[in-house]
């Protein structure tokens, strides 16, 4: 079962939320509801499933309802309808007391503007969650020192938080959230207030930390690059609706609508799209034992290609052959294609997880295609140049071909 399950979650701000809810049922848009009732729709019938240990990113433009959605998880905002089930407990139904215990032990939060207590030291800020639980001072300060070390702030324990830089303050915020050993971390634009450089660094560190602590993390951002970098899965929000949920790659390769497409258009795709999604699957291949040059040539001309992978037993990838080599062999009356095959020393195979950005350099040394293999070196696909280039610039392959034909100048 999933760690967190959100069903039909809605938040409507305003006095006339009942009317607004009716209109919402009728499928009226956010603007229509605002005009008719004066109520703002924060979140509209959101459905999500978040797995234990994953980093789940919610992304969307400003005002799309990300913060509101997140705050329903610990009921800093009370949902108008729907349920949030965490480990089988419906959070929207629990009592004040249970809610406090839930916030104290299970789910903590990191805020965009840190939300630290300015009248306290770093260690006392970090120990705050434990203090609230009633943990005695020695124990909680000891724990705070430990966590402060984890986030790389050793030596700053007794400083006042106001004396720290933004990046350091957010480390304190993170440490405070980790100090109670919660299972779930909510992070609302946690890195958005930081300089780009510090921000990148914090992202890296969060990922490294996650390797160690394996929390379930809900991360909010309006930055797609951040979402793609951190998220195991991403949900994209627009006007209170969740318009798409999927892995970074799914979002990039199959945007659900024009909104998502516009979002992903300018992203640096090379690092995320993998060979698996640009390759031609089940390619025809030359069989090393059975096929001679003639058969190879026929296969190539049937497929309309000038080179083809060679496989051995069980479809194991061995190398490539080119059509002009095969012609030469036929002319000379040779049979064993292995002699003219580009072997594994000369060609590189990749796995389906290799990002396309890493494929490009491999094309530099050769005019052969790339073979994609599985863990047993079985051939599963072929990647051609134009697909990779198309992916990198976010265009269709046919468009790339056209550009290539029209773009050159005749000499």
């Amino acid at each position, binding site marked *: 079962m999933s760690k967190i399950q959100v069903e039909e979650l809605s938040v409507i701000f305003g006095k006339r939320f009942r009317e607004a809810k009716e209109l919402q049922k009728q499928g009226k848009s956010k603007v229509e509801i605002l005009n008719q009732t004066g109520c703002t729709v924060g979140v509209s019938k959101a459905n999500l499933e978040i797995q234990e240990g994953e980093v789940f990113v919610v992304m969307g433009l400003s005002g799309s309802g990300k913060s509101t959605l997140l705050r329903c998880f610990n009921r800093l905002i009370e949902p108008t309808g729907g349920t949030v089930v965490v480990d089988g407990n419906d959070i929207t139904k629990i009592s004040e007391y249970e809610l*406090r*215990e839930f916030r104290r032990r299970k789910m903590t939060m990191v805020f965009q503007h840190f*939300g630290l207590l*300015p009248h306290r030291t770093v260690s006392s800020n970090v120990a705050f969650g434990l203090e*609230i639980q009633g943990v005695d001072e020695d124990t909680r300060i000891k724990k705070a020192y430990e966590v402060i070390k984890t986030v790389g702030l050793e030596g700053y324990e007794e400083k006042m938080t106001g004396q720290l830089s933004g990046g350091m303050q957010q480390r304190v915020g993170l440490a405070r959230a980790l100090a109670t050993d919660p299972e779930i971390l909510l992070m609302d634009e946690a890195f958005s207030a930081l300089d780009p450089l510090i921000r990148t660094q914090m992202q890296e560190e969060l990922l490294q930390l996650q390797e160690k602590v394996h929390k379930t993390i809900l991360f909010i951002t309006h930055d797609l690059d951040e979402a793609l970098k951190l998220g195991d899965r991403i949900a994209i929000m627009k006007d209170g609706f969740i318009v798409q949920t999927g892995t970074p790659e799914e979002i990039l390769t199959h945007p659900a609508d024009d909104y998502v497409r516009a979002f992903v258009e300018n992203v640096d795709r090379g690092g995320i799209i993998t060979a698996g999604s640009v390759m031609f699957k089940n390619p025809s291949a030359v069989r090393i034992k059975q096929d001679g040059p003639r058969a190879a040539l026929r296969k190539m001309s049937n497929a309309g290609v000038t080179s083809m992978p060679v496989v051995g037993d069980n479809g194991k990838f061995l190398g490539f052959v080119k059509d002009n080599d095969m012609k030469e062999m036929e002319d000379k009356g040779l049979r064993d294609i292995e002699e003219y095959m580009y072997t594994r020393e000369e060609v590189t195979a990749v796995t389906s997880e290799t990002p396309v950005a890493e494929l490009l350099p491999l094309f530099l040394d050769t005019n052969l295609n790339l073979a994609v293999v599985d863990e047993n070196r079985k051939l599963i696909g072929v990647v051609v140049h134009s697909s990779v280039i198309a992916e990198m610039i976010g265009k269709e392959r046919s468009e790339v071909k056209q550009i290539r034909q029209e773009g050159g100048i005749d000499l």
Partner: protein
Amino acid sequence: MIDIPLGDWVEQAVEWLSANASGFFNGITAGIDGMVTGLQSALLFPNDYLMIAVLAVIAYLMTSKGHKPFTKGAWKSAWGITVFTILGLLLLQFMGYWQETMQTIALILVSALIALVIGIPLGVYSSRHDAADQVIRPVLDFMQTLPPFVYLIPAIIFFSVGNVPGVVATIVFSLPPAVRLTNLGIRNVQQDVVEASRAFGCTQRQLLFKVQIPLAKPTILAGVNQVIMLALSMVVIASMVGAGGLGQAVYKGILKADMALGFEAGVGIVILAIFLDRVTQALGISRKQVSDEE
């Protein structure tokens, strides 16, 4: 023309109260009287010069807060008011107003203390309940704008004459800033800090005592300062209903057209005002703030 006898109604209400709730008012009278006379005797108990020394040390320690005691920095920020306290109080002692001065201090402290004990919780309450805030606000406006002479009359009816009606009138007059500034201070605490604290599972009590009050402290203490200064400004008026101290000396001066008496006691009030103002202003300075800069 319609004749609305508002004054008559108030009078009837006041009479009804004094007739039917006399036990309650007697209790209050005894309580306040006890506090004032107790504090007064305590202040007058030590030798005058010893008391001056004590007050000077208090002034020094309060205004040098934030610096390590007895360092150059501490002396630099505190020497003015310390010297002033010694000279000012010596002057009052030499002029023969020592007893009146201590009486006035006692009256002010008791009034201010009661005003704070009522006002700060009320301020906390109205910071958390918008409805309460909306009721309390106009009442405070009313209390502050009504000329203080007007509530001397019911004060006499309920508490007869002497220190007690003076203290009560002073409380009514000086209470509003305690409520207002506490309310304001708590409402102005950064919302993201409050939200973060709630997210970590604070109870309302924890939120109040660990977050809101500490962060609102400078504003609340500004309220404390204002309450004390307003209480001081009431001493002459309070003496019209029989409260003692320097205020009474000024009042006598007015009645007898005795310039010398009025002036001497007036100077005494100014000296006390400066002392109390500087010392209570220093309440707001946090220790940590300054000591890290040194």
